């Protein structure tokens, strides 16, 4: 399947869905194309933060299907009662520990992708993690990581020339294979910038005499690359840490928050590293036993993640870096629908993940509520999205990697999800399309709340239709269908039947169509 095929099928690309305030809009014909946009904004310094929830996060107790009796049947001891959830949609509630995530979602700084896994999901932690970090099919073994492949393609000079700033940073881990390239692991790993600096010491950057061209000489060169990298990067990281600062307080007892605090500080200090990885300790999310419900192990973990992400994004907002930084959570698998005999859950398959940042299409849920009726033969949730669709969207929309590069990185083509607001587009006024037979002049309020008012101009008489589609391109409802004479119109439509999220508004005059983005918040 071709990427973006669902949008292409509608004759529209994501780029033609501008985010609109109270200002005149461009029609499709004059909107910049996706590729044009990429060219416009290529080279901007975007930073992506991967948050690994090791152990397999239980999606059903994170986004609770609060109206589904099957959920309560299958989870007699650990289910979250409806009245304890925090509001999300009519049918879904947040785990009560997710207050921070709820706020981020409601403020449009966090998107949810439901049902993420891959065909023939593997239930082993190691293999499952491997698959997520190498971005391969379940039965393919690959030595390099998907981020590593991206960095190798974009930095062919590594390691002969070391870039000024590390290509990737992992806080407190052990050089995840996600950063493995065919030339070695490109990540710089430390728990704390100061400690890293002290560990390396205050020695000058070594200047090595040439090594002989023998097998041993080649290995010596490899060790020297590592030695040089740790030497220069420990200094560079400290420099950035000294220059940077945090605008919010991060609690001491939240490890994830402490890691993200370092990330925010380094970004604020001007470090140009494009990718960070932070993770929650050990295999913490592996809640086979005593997972708990409103309280307990899982609740503690969710509270930690929720509060950490909110603080991080608030920090970035205060530092005016919010639009430059985005990120996502991932976990090797979700957990089984049926709770086990030890008050916990066993390894499962599909689960939700979160994409966060000032530039994501926040407040949106991609995918349906989990289907607890149709499960696989092990009693696990079926796939809604392949995890590589998310990666593909990150590479294409966030890093603006060309399509051919993405195919090299992910080995195949995956349909993107519109996870990000297209950079460089929102603030650019588009030329007014005076020749188009149908022009949307104004749409307000944005986002729409209860109702939306459209002001549009019909240049030639014809059949006018205004309809709403979801982001998968499925028709949701028709607002208006009638014959329209030439002239300017202003009409208000009720949007209460639509749940909060982003939609595509289609205006059609006979065979002419124009598309716009419609955000709805209740």
């Amino acid at each position, binding site marked *: 399947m071709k990427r973006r095929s669902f949008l292409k099928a509608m004759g529209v690309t994501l780029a033609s869905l501008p985010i609109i305030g109270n200002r005149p809009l461009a029609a499709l014909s004059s909107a910049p194309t996706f590729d044009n946009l990429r060219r416009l904004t290529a080279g901007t310094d975007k930073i992506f933060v991967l948050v690994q929830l090791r152990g397999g996060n239980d999606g059903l107790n994170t986004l609770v299907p609060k109206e589904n009796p099957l959920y309560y049947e299958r989870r007699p001891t650990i289910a979250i009662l409806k009245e304890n959830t925090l509001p999300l949609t009519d049918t879904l509630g947040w785990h009560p520990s997710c207050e921070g995530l709820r706020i981020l979602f409601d403020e449009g700084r966090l998107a949810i992708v439901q049902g993420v896994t891959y065909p023939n999901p593997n239930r082993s932690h190691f293999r499952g993690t491997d698959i997520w970090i190498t971005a391969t099919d379940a039965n393919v073994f690959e030595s390099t990581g998907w981020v590593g492949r991206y960095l190798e393609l974009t930095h062919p000079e590594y390691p002969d020339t070391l870039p000024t700033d*590390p290509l990737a940073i992992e806080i407190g881990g052990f050089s995840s294979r996600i950063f493995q390239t065919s030339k070695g692991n490109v990540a710089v790993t430390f728990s704390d910038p100061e400690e890293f600096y002290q560990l390396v010491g205050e020695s000058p950057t070594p200047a090595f005499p040439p090594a002989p061209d023998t097998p041993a000489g080649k290995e010596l060169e490899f060790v020297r690359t590592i030695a040089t990298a740790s030497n220069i990067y420990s200094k560079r990281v400290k420099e950035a840490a000294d220059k940077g600062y945090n605008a919010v307080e991060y609690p001491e007892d939240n490890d994830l928050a402490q890691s993200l605090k370092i990330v925010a500080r380094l970004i604020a200090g001007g470090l140009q590293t494009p990718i960070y990885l932070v993770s929650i300790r050990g295999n913490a999310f592996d809640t086979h036993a005593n997972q708990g419900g409103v309280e307990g192990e899982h609740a503690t973990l969710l509270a930690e993640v929720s509060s950490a992400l909110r603080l991080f994004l608030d920090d970035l907002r205060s530092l005016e870096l919010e639009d430059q930084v985005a990120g996502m959570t991932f976990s090797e698998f979700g957990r089984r629908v049926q709770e086990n005999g030890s008050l916990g859950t066993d390894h499962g398959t599909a689960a939700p993940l979160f994409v966060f940042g000032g530039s994501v299409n926040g407040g949106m849920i991609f995918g349906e509520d989990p289907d607890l009726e149709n499960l696989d033969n092990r009693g696990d949730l079926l796939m809604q999205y392949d995890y590589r669709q998310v990666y593909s969207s990150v590479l294409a929309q966030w890093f603006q990697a060309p399509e051919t590069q993405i195919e090299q990185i992910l080995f195949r083509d995956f349909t993107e999800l519109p996870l990000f607001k297209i950079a460089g587009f929102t603030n650019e006024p588009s030329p007014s399309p005076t020749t188009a037979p149908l022009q949307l002049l104004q749409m307000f309020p944005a986002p729409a709340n209860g109702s939306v008012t459209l002001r549009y101009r019909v240049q030639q008489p014809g059949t006018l239709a205004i309809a709403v589609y979801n982001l998968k391109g499925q028709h949701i409802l028709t607002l208006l269908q009638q014959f329209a004479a030439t002239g300017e119109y202003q009409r208000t439509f009720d949007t209460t039947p639509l749940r909060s999220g982003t939609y595509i508004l289609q205006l059609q005059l006979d065979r002419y169509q124009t598309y716009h983005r419609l955000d709805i918040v209740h």
Partner: protein
Amino acid sequence: MARQMHRRSFLQTLTSLPFDQHPALHKALTLQPLNLTTGLEPYQPNSKLSTEDARHLLRRTCFAPTPAELETATKMTPAEAVDHLLRPLPSPPIPEWYDTDPLSPSELRRLTEEERRAYRQQQFQQIFELIRWWYDLMIATDFSLREKMVFFFHNHFTSGFVQVKVPHYMLTQNMLFREYAFGNLKELTEKIVYDPAMLVYLNGNVNTLRRPNENFGRELLELFTMGEGNYTEWDIVEVSRVCTGWFNTFHKPYYDFDPFPKNPRLRRHDYLSKSIFGEIIDPQVNDDMSTAEIRERGMAEVPQLIDLIFRQQFDESRGYDASHPYYGKTIAAVFFAAKLYRTFVYEIVAPTIVAALADLLVENNFQLKPVLKTLLQSAHFFDPQLRGAQIKSPLDFTVGLLRMYPFVELYRNNQRTWNSILRSVTSVNTILGLRLLQPPDVSGWPGHRDWLNTFTYPYRNAVSDLAIQTLLQQSPLVLYQFAQQFPSFQTNVRTFVSEATSYLLAFPPLESEFDNLVETLLDGAPEYEWSDIAQNAQTVIPRLRAFFQATMKLPQFQLT
């Protein structure tokens, strides 16, 4: 002051890193295959090992040489030294808790939550005791390849204590590896099928007629004997059927096979015929047979299976033709030969050497000893271009460090101190990516370049600094005495640097590095004054400390 900070950050890191780690699985290298002329012919068979030769041999086989081992080795020919490395050793005494049975699942269930937690805690303590016990053997076993082979098998037939849980099983497996350190690969592979730890680790204990579990069957072919691409998914199904029926009884490390073969409802083993690689394994049982006979026939399938696996060849049926370097060779023999090559010689295998080693394995019916013997005394093994061409594993690094300096003499007779050193080795190696008895996954540690990154490299430097600190804390004179073993110590500073660095480094310092080390020792004094400086312990000790620490911070120190 700077040293103090090093120490603090070192300790902070000890506690701030996650316990559970997942280092890279597979090496991703862009290395050229070798084009060397040396082969498996014996290396200088009629002369004694030179000091340099002896160092190379002991670095690769004993983590690093002790001065005493070097002295012994230089009185031997290569063949004699290798024979000595391969000599049979008595089995070491094992931790006492092994004699107390672990609790059975039903006993465990009867415990209260609190008791169960306490019991788990006790099991973890036993595991850590076991880890220290093994580290002690690695450090203190004299002039033997055994412990390195035990690790070779631990990294091959992997099991991890987090999954296995029962420390007795981990020890049983460890002892099995020790018993077979230079033994028969076929026999060992057979025993692994029903090894208690392996039965838990790869779910062999729940692989039954009714609910076949292919976890072990798949790895037996993929990771333990043949490598991917040399079998079909169907073979995995059938191999798994052969392996049904085994399980552990929780009293003592003990396994049993299908206790109710006569009862079709309770039967665990699949007694029907299996077809693997186009051959049939059929126990041919019928209900007229006694229970004992049925079991015996069922159990006999495992050696048949192993024999079958170890007979498979790289032939046309698998898509190989005469142009392939391994054409006509036995697959399992090549598989093990290549792994031995990578362990003892170099990361990138030389196919001709591996093919010859594979032939040797087959000729000797998979006895390891003659193969190890041939490899370790070969001209190829001693090829100057391959010396120092391996990246030290955390074991080479930490165990080697303790063996190169007089830690054993100074501390091993003080149980408390020694235990705390072994504890440090355990945590340091965990941080460096090698958590003993807990491989990252069933494929083991990828090794080589994966060991080093921008964190582990400076961390290793901090550890080697700390090692010297520790020695000096015992007595300021330790380094002074240590330096006496180098003949030129008190006479010629340049010769001393040359002697000491060739002891510590597998790859010599290059010219400017060498000059810097000389400068470190002289610390501003003219060269002709060295003799006076070196006679005076007070003046020379701080210089020696700086010198040894600087030498171990050269990138060369990471090579072996």
